């Protein structure tokens, strides 16, 4: 056993940095280690090995041993979830320790095992009705593997599902707050075989490990894609971040369709109607990318929601109540009861915003006349208005009047917000957009390279090279166009002549 231990500990991330082992040699060592463990006699004492391995230095050995141990127990107990894997028990603790400390370089050699361990941790937490326990672990593991979290994987979907189940919405934000710009692909581009870096090289970015063959993600389907964005929108709904939720829902409802729309898209459209009322007080315009026939399908399948929104937009409180009551079973069936119940408060709030566009000042009594029922007491009205003003939802000020009993005047403000507030908001927004821009430009550059060097383009270039008259009538070469050279002239024409 000691000999086996010395073999599986011979490859260590710590030793690599001390001995300054080259990428190529380290790559060979890691590949040999995987082969050695997978082909070795399975009678070893994995318990002893796991207790003597350091998951941060011997990540690969630890992960493979842990998976081996789990499979062994699954076969022995004839259950997918042996007792040892349940939260708090031995293997659970070892898996959590692994996910908190693993070396993201070594783990590249066992992507499939890494994902299987995540999946089983999620199942164990869910089976014991403690999905929260897996949320933190999976989130930390995802961000450890890929801090940009810009690649949609099947683990993302598992993670968001568990976040929703455990109501740990804010724990999901570090993952869903990062833009997804890549999707795993089924094949590797041919050119990569020629310029391939060793897998352990720092130069290999996570998006190079996108291919299904690395195993970090199960094969994603159309359904997974829409489901992820629907889940993300639901997280934002729970946190009442309506604009973000609308954005995520708009991705779902504008997903490409063949003949018919999916059930997930219809569910997303129903939520999109409610969220747009809650966030904007009206049904916002649907993304233009949605074709008219798809929109008609949505509208015909979400009729009760559209009736509700019509009553909301017409400020018809009685009809709104009636529609909400009549459709109760529908909202319950669609799991939208919570959103519908919030419409009444939102309706009142948006009424005030509308009053502010018509009047510059109103007394509490006038407000009751305009927005509330006359039966509402002025103190109740002031309480509601003060809450809106103090929370920053309504830009107005309140003035208690002298000598008129308990009169209160509401002044709607038309002045812009103070300079400092505006500047700070603007700066925050710019910095946020800047970060997104940086990610997108890097992604676009990479995408452009991929297209240029991609199989299809290389085939086209090679086909054209076979013909002697590759040069077009204008003398422009396709290869030149492909690398962007064909567009240089245009850029010069559009350049600044004053230089």
């Amino acid at each position, binding site marked *: 056993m000691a000999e086996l231990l010395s073999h599986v500990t011979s490859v260590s991330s710590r030793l690599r940095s001390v001995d300054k082992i080259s990428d190529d040699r380290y790559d060979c060592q890691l590949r040999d280690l995987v082969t050695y463990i997978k082909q070795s006699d399975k009678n070893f004492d994995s318990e002893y090995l796991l207790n003597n391995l350091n998951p941060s230095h011997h990540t690969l050995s630890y992960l493979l041993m842990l998976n081996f141990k789990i499979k062994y127990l699954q076969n022995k107990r004839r259950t997918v979830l042996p007792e040892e894997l349940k939260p708090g028990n031995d293997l659970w603790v070892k898996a959590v320790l692994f996910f908190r400390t693993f070396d993201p370089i070594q783990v590249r050699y066992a992507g499939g095992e890494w994902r299987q361990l995540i999946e089983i941790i999620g199942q164990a937490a869910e089976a014991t009705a403690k999905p929260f326990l897996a949320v933190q672990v999976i989130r930390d593991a995802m961000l450890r593997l890929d801090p940009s979290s810009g690649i949609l994987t099947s683990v993302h979907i598992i993670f968001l599902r568990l976040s929703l189940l455990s109501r740990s919405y804010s724990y999901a934000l570090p993952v869903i707050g990062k833009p997804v710009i890549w999707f795993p692909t089924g094949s590797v581009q041919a050119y990569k075989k020629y310029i391939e870096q060793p897998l352990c090289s720092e130069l290999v970015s996570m998006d190079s490990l996108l291919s299904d063959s690395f195993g970090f993600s199960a094969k994603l389907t159309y359904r997974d894609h829409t489901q992820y964005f629907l889940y993300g929108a639901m997280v934002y709904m729970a946190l009442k971040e309506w604009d973000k939720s609308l954005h995520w829902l708009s991705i779902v409802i504008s997903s490409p369709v063949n003949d018919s729309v999916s059930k997930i898209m219809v569910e997303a459209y129903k939520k999109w109607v409610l969220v747009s009322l809650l966030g904007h007080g009206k049904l916002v315009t649907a993304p233009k990318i949605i074709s008219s026939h798809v929109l008609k399908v949505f509208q015909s399948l979400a009729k009760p929601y559209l009736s509700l929104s019509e009553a909301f937009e017409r400020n018809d409180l009685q009809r709104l109540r009636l529609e909400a009551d009549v459709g109760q079973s529908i909202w319950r069936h669609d799991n939208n009861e919570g959103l519908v119940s919030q419409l009444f408060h939102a309706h009142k709030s948006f009424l005030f915003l509308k009053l502010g566009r018509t009047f510059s000042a109103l007394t509490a009594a006038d407000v009751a006349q305009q927005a509330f029922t006359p039966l509402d007491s002025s103190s109740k009205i002031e309480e509601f208005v003060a809450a809106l003003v103090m929370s920053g939802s309504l830009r107005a000020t309140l003035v208690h009047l002298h000598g008129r009993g308990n009169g209160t005047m509401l002044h709607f403000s038309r002045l812009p917000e103070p300079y400092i507030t505006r500047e700070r908001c603007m700066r925050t927004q710019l910095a946020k957009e800047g*970060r997104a821009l940086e990610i997108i430009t890097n992604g676009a550059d990479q995408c452009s390279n991929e297209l240029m060097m991609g199989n299809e383009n290389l085939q086209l270039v090679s086909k054209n090279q076979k013909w002697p008259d590759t040069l077009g009538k204008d003398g422009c070469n396709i290869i030149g166009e492909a690398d962007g050279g064909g567009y240089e002239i245009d850029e010069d024409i559009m350049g600044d002549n004053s230089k």
Partner: protein
Amino acid sequence: MDLPPLSQQQLAAIVTSASTPAELYRTLSDYEAEACLLSSQDSNQAELLSLYYSTFFFSHLLTDQIYEARISTKRMPQGLLQHDPSLQNCLNLLRAVWQRKYEQVYQVLRELPWSDPLKPIVQSYEAYFQEKTLKEISKAYEAIRPAAAATYLGLDPVTAAQADSTTVQKLTAYGWTWDQETGLLHPKPVVEDPQKDDRLYNELSEVMALIGNRRS
């Protein structure tokens, strides 16, 4: 990396050593998984859980995360939540803060029985809530009756209604002005310190550099 085990002493140490409410919230968040593994059926663990979840609840309020505070009550062991006096107090407080019932907020904080280990954080929250409310009414009201201001700030509204000099002095100490003729206070908006976002300037410079790179 490894956290010391969750215990009443450790919780007290976390509360006293956290330099900001955000740090307190972050540290307590890291303990939620460990708390999730404890059993509320065991009386010793139930006591620790009650203290942990109550402190964690206050850390949400101190960082102004009302929605999250509400959601955190759904993640607590529901049996414990229904029967534990401290967690019941937290629920009452949440209801009052959510509905902006100012009188009730102060009543819950001052009059309900809080356990000794929780008293320091309850007092911190009272001070925080009072200061936050002061900023909000300073922005929202151009003129306000002393009794109304007293209600918002947890002072005695009856004496304030009689323009009691102590109450008026307390409020004018915030820079408000007192108009004796009209019997109204004129709040002075509290301007937030703008010198906190150097990071934003740096990030903006990076954005500009990025745009510059794309043009060249």
